[in-house]
């Protein structure tokens, strides 16, 4: 197993570990006398302005960002696949409707989708994930449709059909093996895009509570001590950029 090939996966898992375990409780204000102190033996990245261990908050934040981005990627891809299925099944009616809706919606960034959703819903994790998933839906749908149509029209698929393969069997044995790499790449792209947008929305304040540890939200929280302790606001961005670089990693 070549570790370089699995770098994105390993990094994502390392980040997700922050959801289960961190050196200290990311929300506990146990070290108020140390507030804004730099790195030390027990607090490797120092303590934030409210006396919370920064490494724990950063780790937990990275885990949240990765987890939520993966959730919205899965949701976005799933919805795209479902819409694509419906559009292919009923091309005259639903297909046209979905096509026009996607052409329109592509102009809306997830930020505006998020604002629209906020009219209905309270700021919460579900709103956050839904905004990003729906915001990227037109992009994901279009990409999936291109992959699907090129594969569907391929000659070896036609050959399989002539030989009597159809339905699920045709999909599983003939279409999916060729679709899989493209879908995997798309998923990687979507995950990176989602993490970026998610942290942007969190930075804007679209989080359940103002102290919520998430990379974008951490930057907003620590912006108030930017003059005294710039690393507290800057470190989450470095972590995020590293994660995104890994998600777009090509060997």
């Amino acid at each position, binding site marked *: 197993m070549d570790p370089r090939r699995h770098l994105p996966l390993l990094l994502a898992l390392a980040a997700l570990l922050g959801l289960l375990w961190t050196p200290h409780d990311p929300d506990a204000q146990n070290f108020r006398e140390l507030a804004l102190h730099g790195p030390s033996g027990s607090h490797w990245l120092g303590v934030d302005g409210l006396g919370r261990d920064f490494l724990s908050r950063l780790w937990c934040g990275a885990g949240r960002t990765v987890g939520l981005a993966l959730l919205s990627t899965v949701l976005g891809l799933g919805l795209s696949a479902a819409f694509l299925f419906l559009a292919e099944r009923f091309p005259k009616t639903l297909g046209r409707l979905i096509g026009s809706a996607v052409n329109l919606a592509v*102009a809306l960034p997830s*930020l505006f989708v998020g*604002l*629209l959703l906020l009219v209905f819903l309270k700021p919460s994790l579900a709103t956050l994930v839904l905004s990003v998933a729906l915001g990227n839906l037109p992009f994901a749908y279009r990409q999936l449709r291109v992959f699907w149509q090129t594969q569907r029209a391929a000659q070896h698929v036609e050959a399989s059909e002539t030989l009597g393969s159809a339905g699920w069997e045709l999909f599983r044995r003939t279409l999916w093996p060729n679709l899989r790499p493209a879908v995997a790449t798309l998923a990687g792209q979507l995950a990176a895009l989602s993490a970026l947008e998610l942290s*942007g929305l969190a*930075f804007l304040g679209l989080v359940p509570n103002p102290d919520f540890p998430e990379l974008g939200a951490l*930057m907003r929280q620590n912006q108030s001590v930017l*003059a005294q302790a710039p690393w507290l606001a*800057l470190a989450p961005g470095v972590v995020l950029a590293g994660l*995104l670089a890994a998600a777009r990693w090509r060997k």
Partner: protein
Amino acid sequence: MRGALPILFHKLAGLAAAFLAASLLLFTAVRLIPGDPVALRFKNPDPARVAEIRHHLGLDDPLPVQYGRYVGGFVTGDWGRGLLSGRPVAGEFRSALTATLELTLASLLWGVPLGAAVALVGAGARGWRRGLVSGLGGVGLMVPIFWLGLVGLVVFTHWLGWLPGGGRWSFSDLAPPERTGFLLVDALLAGDFSAFAAALRHLALPALCLGLFPAALVAGTLTTRLEEPSVEILSRALSARGLSPWRLRARHLLKLAAAPLAVLIGTNFGALLGGAVITESLFSWPGMGRLLMTAVLERDVPVVENALLAVLLLSFLAAALADTAAVILDPHLRRAANR
């Protein structure tokens, strides 16, 4: 040109559909969600008083009547008064949009030339010149713009002390008389160079940081376009005629790329506005972002219904115009559209 008209009609029909869908969505969302926007304003709502205010705002009329009034008001520019500020929504929207457009246009003004220059230098090259393209693309795709803004604040505001930490204007600077609403333009019109410098100092960091997004976009797309085989053949033919590489890039390739560039920016106008909203929040810029976020979180009905609808329509409109322009400018697409 023949193919452009049907496309334009098609796009206008789409725009009308978008208007209908978005206005209905906002209308029902604001009214039918539990949590009355009027009762929300009171700690201990007195039913009689709430009913009186609802009546005053016209919230107790039948829904079709309300919807008709809403759409009619939106189209004629009568957007009502904000529940929070008590000021006319149209005026608040205009000043917020001016601030946002000032930021957005300034960022385009330096971002697009930067992206184009990087693409012209890097396309088809190897080594550091190509590295410039992938570097800028990487920054645009992998680094959040608000993080760059934070770095800018640390360096230029806290360490060097050169630039203000946020806002569009300082209390200590004398504002130029308002004509266009764009501070830079107003200062120039008044011939007031110290006001111009003050406005520029406030605009510099947010515009620099937001501009990297269009720069990365333009550099990436343009490089892909310039590295297409057909373009390579053209540039080989032109250099065979004795054109120097730089003249070739500046004259011929840039002309080739101008049309797709306009389209690219139109298509991504919504995303650019979204980026502007985040930049605004970082630099406490008094633009659309602040107006919309407050309105949405506080359920300020007239602002949500009108200002949010206007912003959504603006993104749709920019994309529709870009698509139409693409068909007019690109013969391939025109042929495809006519078919």
